[in-house]
């Protein structure tokens, strides 16, 4: 282990705001050479913002960073890299049309006569790949042709090739195979012993237990604790990560779940390697939550049910009848009556430059048209009803939907689908980035729709929402359903523990 124990890099009192949301508040982080420092926190705790600030991707609003006692400010990722900070992002930063060697050497390719020396670059890349334990990857392969796990290894090799002083790994093992993880861990430990400082962000407690020398827990944009690894139990860590009160008001749930027949069932649903053998049942009148960490297959599950994904395995039944849903058109057709409120309202939910009215009536145009011509009066009446039902605050139906606030935009997306009176409603994290007031209206609405006989499958990254809204919650991990909770069992501890896949130890608290 390195002799230096004083932190050589510090983040001090850094804050960052996105619009009205405080993503990072007075956060501090000391970084010491020769240590692996794990950073923990829930979704949206501010970890990613902190990393982006350190990597020069976003500029902080307040606070400062110092390296060897000198103040630093990065105007671009290139400057952060020049200062010796390399970052492996969740969203990979590889260029798909270039070869592996091109990517590994991208920052400063070896040159001769002003041209890139391809032989030298190749040796450089081979060495970097070998250092990362990925010698199986051919330097000439195009990145776009590689599987996700291989790309992640290339990303690691690329970061190592820069010989950084600080290496930041943001969920860098999420797509790796078990064999790769083992190799990467060996590499990381060696780098630590060579004196590199590593920041390791992961949701996987077992990885952190194996790697980390010290840990910091983030919550609501603050660093709530920094402690030596192994000094806290998993239960305590989970406690620190949650540590907040559930202040939102949720509508009451029915005391006994309604005994309606299943509206939507699937058995053994699989797709590519992202969904594994998913079986679930949603009854009419029921709100079923989907939980788990980001990116464990929840989005793919909803897309598969809605007919967007090709080559799905398994069996889907709608109201008892086996149904093949092979397109969104089929999903919303009579008999299936399904609606999907997508994750990204700006790209998949709305046509931003078009008017509020056009957006609202879009999914139901077939019902509002006679012989192919839209009945403007019926459209207007339907829009009025939707706007009233959802309390959409807009200056009129003619203004572009772009001009509405995020919450009202989301109401338009939902209103658009409610106009078809769907029997099955799939929601993909519908409250992301909208204000508390609108959230509460949405919760009320979901319950009313369920009471009216709709079957609701509701993915949320906010545990409080799952607890407050859902009759049952299914927790996903690695493409499969890892746990199911109903009624009183739905607690934050249960959800967090099963999402992290750490079994029952955390539930004793």
């Amino acid at each position: 282990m390195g002799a230096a124990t004083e932190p050589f890099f510090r983040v001090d009192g850094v804050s960052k705001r996105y619009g009205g949301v405080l993503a990072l508040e007075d956060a501090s982080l000391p970084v010491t050479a020769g240590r692996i420092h794990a950073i923990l926190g829930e979704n949206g705790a501010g970890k990613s913002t902190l990393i982006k600030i350190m990597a020069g991707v976003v500029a902080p609003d307040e606070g400062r960073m110092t390296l060897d006692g000198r103040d630093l400010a990065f105007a671009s990722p290139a400057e952060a890299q020049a200062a010796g900070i390399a970052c492996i992002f969740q969203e990979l930063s590889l260029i798909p049309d270039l070869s592996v060697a091109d990517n590994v050497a991208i920052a400063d390719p070896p040159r001769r006569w002003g041209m890139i020396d391809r032989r030298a670059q190749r040796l450089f890349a081979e060495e970097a790949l070998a250092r990362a334990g990925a010698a199986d990857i051919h330097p000439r392969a195009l990145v776009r042709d590689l599987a996700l796990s291989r790309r992640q290894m290339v990303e690691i090799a690329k970061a190592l090739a820069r010989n950084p002083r600080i290496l930041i790994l943001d969920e860098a093992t999420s797509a790796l195979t078990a064999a790769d993880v083992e190799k990467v861990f060996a590499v990381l430990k060696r780098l630590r012993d060579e004196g590199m400082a590593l920041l390791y962000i992961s949701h996987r407690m077992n990885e952190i237990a194996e790697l980390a020398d010290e840990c910091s827990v983030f919550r609501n944009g603050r660093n709530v604790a920094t402690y030596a690894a192994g000094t806290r139990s998993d239960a305590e860590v989970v406690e620190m990560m949650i540590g907040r009160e559930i202040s939102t008001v949720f509508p009451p749930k029915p005391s006994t779940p309604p005994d309606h027949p299943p509206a939507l069932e699937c058995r053994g649903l699989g797709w590519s390697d992202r969904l594994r053998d998913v079986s679930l049942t949603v009854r009419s009148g029921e709100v079923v939550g989907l939980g788990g960490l980001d990116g464990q297959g929840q989005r793919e599950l909803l897309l598969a049910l809605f007919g967007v994904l090709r080559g799905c395995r398994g069996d889907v039944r709608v109201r008892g009848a086996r149904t093949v849903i092979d397109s969104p058109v089929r999903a919303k057709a009579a008999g299936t009556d399904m609606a999907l409120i997508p994750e990204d309202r700006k790209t998949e939910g709305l046509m931003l430059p078009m008017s509020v009215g056009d957006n609202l009536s879009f999914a139901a145009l077939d019902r509002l048209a006679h012989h192919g011509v839209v009945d403007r009066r019926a459209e207007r009446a339907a829009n009025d009803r939707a706007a009233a039902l959802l309390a959409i605050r807009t200056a009129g139906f003619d203004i572009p939907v772009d001009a509405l606030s995020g919450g009202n935009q989301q109401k338009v997306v939902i209103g658009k689908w409610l106009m078809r009176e769907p029997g099955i409603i799939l929601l993909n994290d519908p409250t992301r980035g909208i204000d508390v007031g609108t959230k509460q209206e949405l919760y009320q609405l979901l319950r009313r729709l369920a009471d009216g006989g709709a079957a609701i499958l509701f993915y949320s990254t906010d545990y409080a929402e799952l607890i407050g809204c859902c009759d049952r919650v299914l927790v996903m991990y690695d493409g499969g359903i890892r746990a199911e909770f109903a009624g009183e069992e739905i607690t934050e501890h249960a959800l967090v523990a099963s999402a992290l896949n750490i079994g029952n130890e955390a539930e004793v608290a």
Partner: protein
Amino acid sequence: MREWRFWLAEQRGTLMAVGIFATMFLIYISNHPAGLTANVVQTAANKGVLLAFVAMAQALIVITAGIDLSVGMTLVLTNCLASWIVVGAPLPTALGVAGVLLTGLACGALNGLLVIVGRLQPIVATIATGAIFFGIALLLRPFPGGSVNEDLADALTGKIFGVVPASLVALGAVILFVWIPFRRSALGRAAYAAGSSEAAAYMSGVPIRRGKFAAYLFSGLFAAMGGLFLTFFTYTGEAAYASGNAYTLFAIASVVLGGVSLYGGRGSAIGAVFGALAFRTIGDLLFVFDFEPLWQPLFQGVVLLLAVSLGALALVQVKNRLEWFR
């Protein structure tokens, strides 16, 4: 052992263009009454080289995920300029050639500044600059006319050792001494990276702006070389609106035929050159099969459609339908 496979994968688009061109040219030659003679090759080369230069110019922009609707007008402008200044004794002629090439660089620089610094969309910016270039060309040559140093013109459009078309040699020299060094430089790589994934390139600390600007500069340069050759072939300058636009559109077609992805980041100017040669051969094919010239546009359209459809085959295998829209 696997090396050649990677080479094949890298060059797939270019090789396909070479294949398409070779097939068409073979059919052309074997049906030509005179067969494979130096004169037949020379005529074909001179016709093809013009479009090849403009296609290279277009390819550079397309590689950065843009599109340049002003390349044809840069050609017209430099043609009109050349008909004024590439005249006289060797020294004035040489200065004239330099002036024409510098003008091409300036056209490219203007486009580059508008797109990179001004953040205008390439399609709109180049419609506007194309109109400006044509406007200047009209002022230079309200009526067709002018002249060019005929010794130089004849040397560059004739045959070397009585066999090899000089225009083809010039094109080859430009590829060898301008295109290949650019492609292999860090700047060239930055241009490809920006076209492939600008966000990833930015995160990786790649000098995106410089790379893209270099691509625009070279694009203007290649278009100006096209303008020079046009002057060498015709001995005059003409501000021909229809022909400028036709060159722009044919250049896009050549780029696509040449395996350069319109999404950016993939392909090579060499592919675009063969795309241009293939595109030009379509017209010649009609000639040897005694079709009326009236058939040419229709036939060109069909061939282009078939070639482009080959590239769309990959979409059939998409597993997540949302990827169709990305």
